């Protein structure tokens, strides 16, 4: 079995020591630090991206919160405005209605007064007409000149039965 032939033991050991030492030192000093740097760089990049993603998410949440706040605020303001407007309109309407009512009342009372006045006037005229007609009629029939006072007295006493 060639493995047990000691002829080349020293040679084998010598070259093993040379090559393995070289390999070990080369990997230890050159190759492995390089791979480690790459892995570290990648890990850093991933961490960085993750943290910036988290930051962005937080910012987005903040913005969303702000938007929601503003929406709520706007809603409240709108509600307030609507209420105010409704109130103002109602006040306006009621004041206009009341002023209309007043106008109407005034007009009604004015009209009533006018009616009463014209009625009085008419009554007075009727009295005068009655007096004139009575005077004319009595004068034509009897030739008696009746004084206005006398006639008025008679009319006044009879008036109750007219009304």
């Amino acid at each position, binding site marked *: 079995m060639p*493995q047990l032939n000691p002829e080349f033991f020293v*040679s084998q050991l010598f070259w093993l020591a040379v090559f393995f030492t070289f390999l070990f030192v080369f990997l*230890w000093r050159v190759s492995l630090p390089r791979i480690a740097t790459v892995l570290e760089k990648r890990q850093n990049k991933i961490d960085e991206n993750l943290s910036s993603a988290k930051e962005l998410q937080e910012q987005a949440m903040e913005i969303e919160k702000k938007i929601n706040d503003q929406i709520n605020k706007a809603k409240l303001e709108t509600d307030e405005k609507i209420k105010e407007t409704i109130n103002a309109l109602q006040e306006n309407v009621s004041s206009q209605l009341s002023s209309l009512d007043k106008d109407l009342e005034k007009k009604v009372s004015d009209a009533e007064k006018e009616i009463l006045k014209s009625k009085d006037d008419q009554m007075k005229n009727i009295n005068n007409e009655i007096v004139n007609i009575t005077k004319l009629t009595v004068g034509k029939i009897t030739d008696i000149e009746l004084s206005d006072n006398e006639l008025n007295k008679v009319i006044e006493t009879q008036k109750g039965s007219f009304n």
Partner: protein
Amino acid sequence: MAAKDSPLKQFEIDPISNIELGGYNISFTNSSFAMLITVLVITLFLTLTVSTRSIIPSRMQLISELMYNFIAQLLSDTVGDNGKRYFPFVFSLFMFVLIGNMVGMIPYQFTFTSHIIVTFALAAVVFIGVTILGFINHGIKFFTFFYIPGVPFYMHPLLIPIEVISYLSRPISLSVRLFANMLAGHTLLKVFAGFVVSMPFFTGVFPLAFIVALTGLEILIAFLQAYVFAILTCLYINDAYHLH
């Protein structure tokens, strides 16, 4: 069977150039050449694939990173945080054995891991290093490693020698495991390759098909043995930190 056709002939060492140093024969042989190829493959692969240092790796860079993470994970699983210091050594060991085995799978290429002297030297480095580490970490208390707590006192005279023997046989088991696997696999391949030539007519295709299947198995074993070598090294390092 003539020596020329022996399945063990593939393990013979042929000097490429004869060198002598201080009376010792340190000829550059086919074994040394295989080691040279192995070291070149590892260093060039790990250097060139990571040369761009891209954040988004190319496929080749990914292979290097996967190997790095594979051994780093292995160390942190078995040893924990203490293991980081030994990462370059364990990684070099794993890659050296793995690529050495793989280079050996190339037809007509020498397999240096099939030589007991090579595997024993690697195992001895691990064994001596771990023992020194144990004494550095625990001083004289490292000897309590052989004392198993929670065992009836009359068992200790039996158990302590067993523990000592099992500890001392670590480099042997570690080196023989790798050596024997490589030896057996390559011998088997060679034997069946002999059948391909010697069998009549077209019946040689059957051993040929077997060789193809066996080559796949041998590649698996090449990886598995490198992995076993690395994981046992990790476990021994762990033992040097944590006694029973």
